[in-house]
């Protein structure tokens, strides 16, 4: 339990990596790393697809990363209507880890350009929910 606090609308409550939400509370965006073979994962996971070990440790995603691509949504699925319009994106970090998320409203459409530096920042949402968004470093 606990994972239902992640995001505007949540669909999963139970996962072995629910601690991700606690780290967001504490201000950190975390991935997991396999203690056995060293593979780094974002999104974090409990199990390693490379060596099949389930012995993982947490590591912090620190920035900045570079904007790979993005889009601004004018329509949304149920439960997200009040956030419209918003922008989703993929950001790639120097170690090759990529992170999917939303771009902060503090950055205008005009400022956006592929390749620009961005950092992931944990944010509080209404209803005791948490997420992260990408801002200027």
């Amino acid at each position, binding site marked *: 339990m606990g994972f239902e606090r992640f995001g505007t609308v949540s*669909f999963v409550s139970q*996962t072995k990596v629910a601690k991700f939400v606690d780290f967001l509370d504490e201000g950190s965006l975390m991935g997991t790393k396999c203690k056995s073979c060293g593979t780094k994962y974002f999104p974090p996971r409990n199990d390693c697809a490379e060596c099949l070990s389930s012995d993982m440790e947490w590591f912090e995603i620190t920035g900045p990363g570079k904007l790979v*691509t993005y889009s*601004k949504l004018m329509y949304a699925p149920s439960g997200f209507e009040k956030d419209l319009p918003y922008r989703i994106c*993929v950001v790639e970090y120097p170690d090759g880890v990529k992170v*999917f998320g939303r771009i902060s409203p503090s950055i205008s459409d005009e400022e956006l350009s592929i390749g620009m530096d961005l950092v992931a920042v944990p944010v509080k949402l209404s209803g005791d929910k948490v997420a992260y968004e990408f801002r200027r470093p």
Partner: protein
Amino acid sequence: MQKVGIIGVGQSAFVRGYEGSIRELVFEGFSEAMRDAQIKPQDIQASIICSAPEYDKQRTPAGLMAEYLGLNPQPTFYIESVCSSSSMGLRVAFSMIQAGLHDVVAVIGFQKMSEISSAESQERMGRGADIMWESPFGTMMPAYYAMHARAHMNTYGTTEEDLALIRVKAASYGQINEKAVYRKGVTLEKALESDPVSTPLKVFDCCANADGSSCIIVASEEMAKKLSPKPVWILGLGAASAPINMAGRTTFTGLTCAREAAKQAYDMAGVGPGDIDVAEVHDCFTIAEMMAYEDLGFAEPGKGKELIRNKETYIGGKIPVNVDGGLLSKGHPIGATGGSQIRTITLQLRGEAGPMQVDGAKIGLVHNIGGVGIYGNVTIFGRDE
């Protein structure tokens, strides 16, 4: 190893808001295929039912369809890879025939997207992504393809007009396809002026939701030769996958699952992109067709725009693509889409495509994608000389 052929094809009209039940909808595509193959339900040795389950109230529709279509006591089951379900069904039918388990198999695709309410549909849309890590941000298919469009434009200089040209082509063929849901023409201006859905994609960059069914009758070489005057042969099959999470992707200017599936299909068929006479590609969005040109090798990476600018993908061009209107105008009833693509290519190779016919087409290709490049199927078909 023997060959495997297609001996019958059918599809319902693709419509908005079909007014019957899903069993009645499925019967439309099935009965057309049976008439086409001139066989009876008892000649079908197994049926494979393909759709996306979120749009049905009926649980386990395979059993229901087998009963309604007169396909008991033969085995039946359900296959799903979202939008590419019926191409995956064809791959499995091919396999069961090659394994000697069956000689004649029906691959039946359907979707009644209007079965659920618009609110229910909006709710399901968000759950097609990884529901732990992406859906909580509010995601939709158009937004994912839009991210690919943005990357393609940034990398290669593809323009919004290039994408609009693909829609113009689709609409020009949708006008002459009696089974298409969108029968009107679309001008370049109209496409470019349409409202944004998820930038840079606009309303006319997106395919039309539709209700529909399709059916493909697949047979062993011996049965195909016995039953069909013009069997169409499966020459090559390719299938691949890519991570559902965008964070796991290595590129956004193409779909790796399509490239890998194409390579497998070309290798198995012993042909290359230049040998394809007519193709059906998965144009759920205009950018998807643009990427397909490149992923299939019809154009070098970044050169897809030249193909459409020069009308090379129209009938009469170098490689006619989606000359039945494609998903954009013919419509995209998820589970039925691949079957409809296969039907179009079968008719083309038989010379029975009517006003959409590509003269002398001998080798055809179907490119069918599930989700945002999660599943890729490429299948190559040929006819007897």
